């Protein structure tokens, strides 16, 4: 029944192989032949004597860029504080700040929220979002077209997060670069407004692909604009079948209850 395992045919580590002849010396007197010796010989830079040893090591080292390491640190910090961080990304003008204003005025009265908001220049959004019950920090990036995890780590230290359950990170308006920068958020929220084309998800797939939630914003003016909601939703589903979709209007309040339920559920998990 139990057949003995055949002896291994690979040289033990440390065996010397003559790169010219394929002969093995050292740990074993077995000579190598066939494709293996050719492979090893090809991999070697032979010493003048032609005899070298090689060590091939399966290292499997993930190459985490600096941002990813900092993002993981942020994630641990946020979870350790029991707060849910959301990264809001969209084109400029899709309604991120207006959404957050209403959210702070309604949801934020019962659940303590904080905001980190990024723009290239001005603290206009920081001022718009300023509320006595919600700490806000404005990040001005200068020439940088996205927020990165290091900026978030610094900005988060600058405000008092005591009692905060939901941290909104309003990213720089840009549908390209923010997709590549994990900030350590629990959820990435991509906004698509009815003033944009229904095919935006098809044109900028990476950011939609990375979304946990897609908010279709400004739905109150969809009909006026001739924006086809069903087409937009179908396009989101094609690129981002994993994402939940909520249709909202920060002006009329449509869909806001569903958005708040989403936030409440996320905060409960944090």
């Amino acid at each position, binding site marked *: 029944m139990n057949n003995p395992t055949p002896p291994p045919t690979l040289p033990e580590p440390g065996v010397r192989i003559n790169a010219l002849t394929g002969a093995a010396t050292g740990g074993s007197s077995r000579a190598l032949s066939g494709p293996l010796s050719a492979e090893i010989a090809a991999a070697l830079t032979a010493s003048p004597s032609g005899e070298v040893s090689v060590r091939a090591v399966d290292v499997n080292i993930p190459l985490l860029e600096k941002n990813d390491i900092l993002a993981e640190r942020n994630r641990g910090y946020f979870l350790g504080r029991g707060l849910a961080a959301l990264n809001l990304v969209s084109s400029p003008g899709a309604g991120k700040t207006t959404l957050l204003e209403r959210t702070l005025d309604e949801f934020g009265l019962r659940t303590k929220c904080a905001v980190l908001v990024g723009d290239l220049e001005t603290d206009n959004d920081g001022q718009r979002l300023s509320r006595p019950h919600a700490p806000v920090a404005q990040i001005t990036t200068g020439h940088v077209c996205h927020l990165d995890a290091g900026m978030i780590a610094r900005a988060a230290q600058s405000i008092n997060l005591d009692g905060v359950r939901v941290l909104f990170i309003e990213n720089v308006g840009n549908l390209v670069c923010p997709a590549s920068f994990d900030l350590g958020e629990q959820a990435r929220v991509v906004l698509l407004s009815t003033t944009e084309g229904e095919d935006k998800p098809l044109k900028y797939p990476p950011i939609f692909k990375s979304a946990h939630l897609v908010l279709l914003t400004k739905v109150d003016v969809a009909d006026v604009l001739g924006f086809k909601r069903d087409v937009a939703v179908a396009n989101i*589903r094609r690129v981002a079948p994993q994402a939940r979709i909520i249709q909202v209007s920060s002006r009329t309040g449509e869909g806001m209850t569903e958005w708040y339920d989403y936030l409440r559920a996320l905060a409960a998990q944090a």
Partner: protein
Amino acid sequence: MESALDAIRREAGAHGATRVSRIVLRIGTLAGVDEDALRFAYEALAPSSIAAGAVLEIETVPARAHCAACARDFGAGRGFIFTCPACGGLSGDIRAGRELGIARLEFPDSP
């Protein structure tokens, strides 16, 4: 590429090696890494590093997604819309293709 060379230097040190003769990177098609750009960076940085003279090999990992309805993985091909070839359903459940790392290193030793 700089972080890769740092990691290779550390790994070589851990194995008592002063040179590396072959570097095998494993890169998924969804990792957002352009192979030409990577090789360009390698050629610029390697000669002055521990990897001087080393062969750079890139293993490409094709994207694979999972279809929940069919309970199977499928090759996702090019693009960002993953359609199950069996049932036509869409999937956002990516199972492979985001890899970015060093798979294997080979160190030569002087005799």
